[in-house]
């Protein structure tokens, strides 16, 4: 990759937006790229807006904090758009020309005006029903974040499936340090699957499936995307 990829993730507390950013960054780190990830610094609560950021690039990254001008925006929950559970209005403010927006939804959530403005910036919009995919393959909606990073990797190719798997192992395969709320959720996930191995496999399967679908979509796109 030639230039920096800035990814902004908007979701709701409990969806794993922070974990998603960390996983993408760790995968990039495994790939020998430079990366930095951080959450929006708030008192995160379940179902309240949550945001995280991931910066990946071929040279040392210093920039940190809230990402104001992203190339990629991921929306983890329809309420980010429909109920304005977003730190910005509209949720895509600051998106760069030729950028990419990935939305977890089963229907189009954007208004005519939104479409027009994004078209003017040549921003591609990819709707994916990540929650259904997570339920179907991961067996829990808690794997929605896996589907989303799979889709992101499938389109941008910023990290490979192999590197994502390594990051997943790092994150869940060994003891990981997370803030109170995140640690509790991890425990919830672990209990649900009973076995850690199973958890890792199902999450990886979710990532792979989303990666494949998104890859196919990207190949059919006629649009020039800044993110590839």
């Amino acid at each position, binding site marked *: 990759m030639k230039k920096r990829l800035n990814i902004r993730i908007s979701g709701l507390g409990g969806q794993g937006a922070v974990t998603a950013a960390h996983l993408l960054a760790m995968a990039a780190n495994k790939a020998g790229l430079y990366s930095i990830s951080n959450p929006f610094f708030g008192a995160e609560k379940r179902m309240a807006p949550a945001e995280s950021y991931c910066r990946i690039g071929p040279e040392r990254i210093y*920039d*940190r*904090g809230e990402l104001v001008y992203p190339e990629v925006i991921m929306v983890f929950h329809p309420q980010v758009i429909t109920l304005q559970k977003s730190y910005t209005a509209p949720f895509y*403010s*600051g998106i760069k020309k030729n950028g990419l927006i990935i939305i977890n939804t089963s229907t189009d959530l954007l208004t005519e005006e939104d479409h027009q403005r994004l078209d003017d910036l040549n921003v591609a919009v990819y709707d994916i029903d990540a929650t259904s995919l997570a339920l179907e393959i991961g067996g829990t909606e808690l794997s929605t974040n896996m589907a989303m990073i799979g889709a992101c990797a499938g389109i941008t190719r910023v990290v490979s499936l192999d590197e994502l798997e390594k990051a997943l192992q790092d994150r869940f395969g060994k003891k990981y*340090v997370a803030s109170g709320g995140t640690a509790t959720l991890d425990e919830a996930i672990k209990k649900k699957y009973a076995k850690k191995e199973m958890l890792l496999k199902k999450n990886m399967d979710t990532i792979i499936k989303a990666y494949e679908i998104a890859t196919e979509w990207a190949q059919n796109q006629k649009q020039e995307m800044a993110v590839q």
Partner: protein
Amino acid sequence: MNKPVGVKEKGVKMSQHVKLGQKNKKGQVYTDIVDMFNMPEPPSFLTGSEVIRDAVKVASIDLSVAYPITPQSEAAALIGELYAEGYLGDYFRGESEFAVMGQCAGAAFGGARVFTTTAGPGTLRAFENFPMWAGARLPIQVCVTCRGINSPLTIQPDTLEMYFLLETGMLIWHAETAQDLYDYILAGFMVAEQPDVHLPIATCCDGFFVTHTKDTVNKVPDEVCLPPYDPYRSPVPCMDMENPPVRMMRDPFVMKSNYISYSTHASWQQEVRAAIERSRKHTIRILGSLVETQNTDREILIVASGTAVSQSREAIRLLEEEGIKVGLVKLKTIRPFPHAELREATANAKAIFVPEFNLSGWLAREVKACIPNNERVHAGPQVGGGMTMPLEVIAEEIKRYLGIPTETLASRGS
């Protein structure tokens, strides 16, 4: 006093009560800090909180006291895990930052190497303790993960609390990245504990930007550790009833309002300030310098500390693409303030920008007070309330000075 010291001279003066090469009860080998820094591990990808834990693990700390306040709570809890694993002598949760800093003081009076962490409102609640630490010559290290302190409440990064700390008599260092933080925590003990320094040290970093951000860090192997603190090298007696003098004054002068009490207090304050200056040579020996400079021959310079340095590095790249050349001076230590280094680095600059993560512009004031022709100093850009400082904003500030038209930046929410 204050003789120049050959900075290339390897090794930092340390206690003789343990020999380098000996092992502690966890099997870690006591190692000179310069040697430690020369044996890096493969890079790790960690948050700042994890980095604090990993530095503490190899710092031979006797005691740490914890109290929850965002954004240092994770780090403080992780130190507890190290205690459970046997890396610290004692660890507990205090009841408030004022109490915690008192507990740290008690332990340091008793001859322990002490580490704690705090942030924002916690720093201010603890405040009465800091000048007391300095006056009592307690080489406690507090890691300050800066957070806004004004009402309305905020948990976001804002470096205003550092302004309050400047005249406490503590050493104040400002880490740019998780790597800096790791290095400074280890170096901090070695510098603060030197007999001719022997002062508390605040190793500051910007909350969240460092503590909650995952970044690449080169650590030292866990199999080595700093040599332990030797309280009998302290310039004031350790309060353990193991060393004379016990006090037998006929007339305790300090609490009386007479000439000798004023004189004692005044000279002691001067001594504390002199001790801060004496820390320079030790810091230079370990960290190489009090500042880091890049292209200071350029007409436009940025002077910054902490995360503002990182944002400036990116802004400089951005401007470079447009043919605008800007140099950089990063301040690692704020106390001692690198006067000579800064005057030298800014000698040829026509414009000096000081971006800051607070609205008081304290660093710009420090810079202005230090260099000649200080109308060259442009205080800004400044962000408050924990906002991010996009590189585009720094670049815009410089372009405006150069008279280059800029597009008004679309901000979030517009």
